[in-house]
């Protein structure tokens, strides 16, 4: 039986100490840190040794502080995203915020740094995973060759293995509704990343307001025309809030029925459809979430999440 490949543990630390024989605390600490372990080394300091009475007073004070701390309301959950719109019914603890002018330097105020919605070093991989389609461009499919030859047929074409590839390109649909205004810079940045990942010639960019079937186009709004899905079965990527961020009676807000018509149109063209939505899953329209894979456009999104979502879409949505 092969030994299990356990995660790095204290045994590794012991082995490293035994082999490398560190002779001082710094070396021991450096080895432990390199192994992903952390500890606080006790650093006895004579100046910190306190008289017994003083220690007793501090202990009493600590006990009082602890009791006071326990009386405080439990902290609300950590906000993991700048787009976290969930609200707590409990009264939030008061927070002291310094005045804006004191906390923002002049240069920061002039040019605030954009924190991209996807983690920068993962964006390319997320896009590759999300926009790849299977094409027969891989190695020779030996199993199929054997099957053909074994059944006495001629090889008319060389069967190739199906491999995820970006060669089909992508049709990018950018929602320019007012509700997406806070995300314009994110859209521009992601557009640039998509072009860099997929290739300039392989990205078709169309803009729309509300829903693409109302009209879409590459240029200014007056030039937009009837929306056409891609002919080449290229994937379609939506950068939209799917109407989430708009008031119910807003003209720009497309209804679920309108979106479903659009989805049917894209599916008829046999193009895979994917949506990046800058809101959390609890706010997605359930009917749309059941029809297309929706990815939360957020820093917590990973390639694994995208792959699982697409796998689920293939198996369940079809």
């Amino acid at each position, binding site marked *: 039986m092969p030994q299990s490949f356990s995660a790095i543990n204290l045994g590794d630390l012991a082995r*490293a100490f035994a082999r490398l024989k560190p002779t001082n605390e710094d070396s021991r600490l450096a080895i432990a840190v390199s192994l992903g372990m952390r500890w606080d080394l006790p650093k006895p300091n004579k100046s910190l040794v306190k008289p017994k009475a003083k220690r007793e007073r501090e202990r009493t004070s600590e006990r009082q502080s602890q009791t006071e701390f326990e009386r405080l309301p439990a902290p609300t959950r950590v906000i993991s995203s700048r787009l976290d719109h969930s609200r707590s019914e409990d009264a939030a603890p008061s927070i002291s915020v310094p005045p804006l002018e004191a906390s923002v330097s002049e240069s920061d105020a002039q040019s605030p*740094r954009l924190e991209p919605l996807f983690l920068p*070093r993962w964006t390319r991989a997320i896009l590759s995973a999300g926009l790849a389609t299977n094409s027969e461009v891989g190695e020779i499919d030996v199993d199929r*060759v054997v099957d053909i030859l074994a059944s006495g047929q001629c090889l008319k074409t060389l069967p190739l293995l199906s491999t995820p590839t970006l060669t089909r390109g992508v049709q990018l649909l950018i929602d320019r509704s007012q509700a997406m205004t806070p995300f314009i810079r994110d859209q521009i940045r992601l557009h640039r990343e998509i072009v860099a990942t997929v290739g300039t010639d392989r990205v078709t960019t169309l803009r729309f307001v509300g829903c693409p079937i109302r009209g879409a186009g590459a240029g200014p709004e007056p030039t937009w025309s009837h929306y056409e899905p891609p002919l080449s079965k290229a994937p379609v990527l939506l950068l939209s809030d799917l109407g989430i961020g708009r008031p119910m009676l807003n003209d720009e807000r497309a209804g679920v029925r309108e979106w479903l018509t659009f989805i049917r149109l894209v599916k008829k063209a046999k193009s895979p459809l994917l949506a990046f939505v800058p809101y959390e899953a609890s706010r997605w329209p359930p009917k749309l979430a059941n029809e297309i894979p929706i990815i939360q456009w957020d820093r917590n999104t990973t*390639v694994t999440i995208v792959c699982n979502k697409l796998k689920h879409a293939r198996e369940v949505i079809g």
Partner: protein
Amino acid sequence: MLSYKKVFNPRKTENFTPVGTTKASGKKDQYAGDRRDGLVYVYDDDIILAVNIALSVKRPLLIRGASGSGKSSLALNIARFFKWRYYEVVISSGTQARDLLWQFDTLRRLSDAQAHLGVKDDVHYIEPGVLWWAFDRPSAQLRGAQPQKPGPADLADTALAIDPNKGDDDEHAVVLLDEIDKADPDTPNNLLVPLGSLEFFVTDAKTKVKATEPPLVVITSNDERELPSAFLRRCIMLNLKAPNRARLVAIAVAHFGSKNRVLYEQVAKLMLPENEGVAMDGEEAKPQQSAAEYLDTVSACLALNIKPKPNDTTWEALSKVTLWKPKELPGVN
């Protein structure tokens, strides 16, 4: 100051350039593109410690860092230092974990059958991967056939697999799995057992391969794709920090000799005005430059006799193509 018994104890600059091809001989340096020959490496304490720990606990060493920061060349330099065997494979999007163990040449087998040459025993069609070679070279040479009884009677010497070793001839080996982040997300997880237990079963040869001497497996990642946490937890991690000016100059001296030190310092100063390395996550804050780009610039300055000076047209033109590469593509809004 770190103090421990170093299994791996290189000099700060380890240079294996053969005598006769260095500047000492008066010949021009052989610098060209990305050096993957592992001839020259400038070490710091963190790198030496990480290698020592990986060797001690026999875990893979995962090196993260920007392109051109010296991840790949470290493995070969370690192999040169120890005079060990050296195997490398550059991972691509199509690489599967099994490719690193062995491959079965089904097409050649089919071709033999079609040509009526007679299908040989399966071991003839097995191509050992880098990990097999590193774990057990004799077994890899025989493609998994039993050495006592060669099995197929026609397993002649010509059928022995060719050792892709690029290092010395030794029982120990260093294996470089380069750019693992390019692979399919499942690939790293599929390597957990072979890398952890140091053994695997070759189903096509019905034989078990077990490492006689655990190799040092060096894995590099550009961090373009996150690696599975299960995989990360089993590796010794080394994050190669972006170099500061002093390190850049040391790297240039190691590659080109100390004759043009002033030039190296000038280029380093113009490249890093604040004498700080570029943070891994700082794509927005500062332009991404690596030691490789610095070396390209120094090399171009030496070859074209360009003196780096602020506001100099020639220098600015050179730095534009070697250092300040635009990230924005034309026509994208």
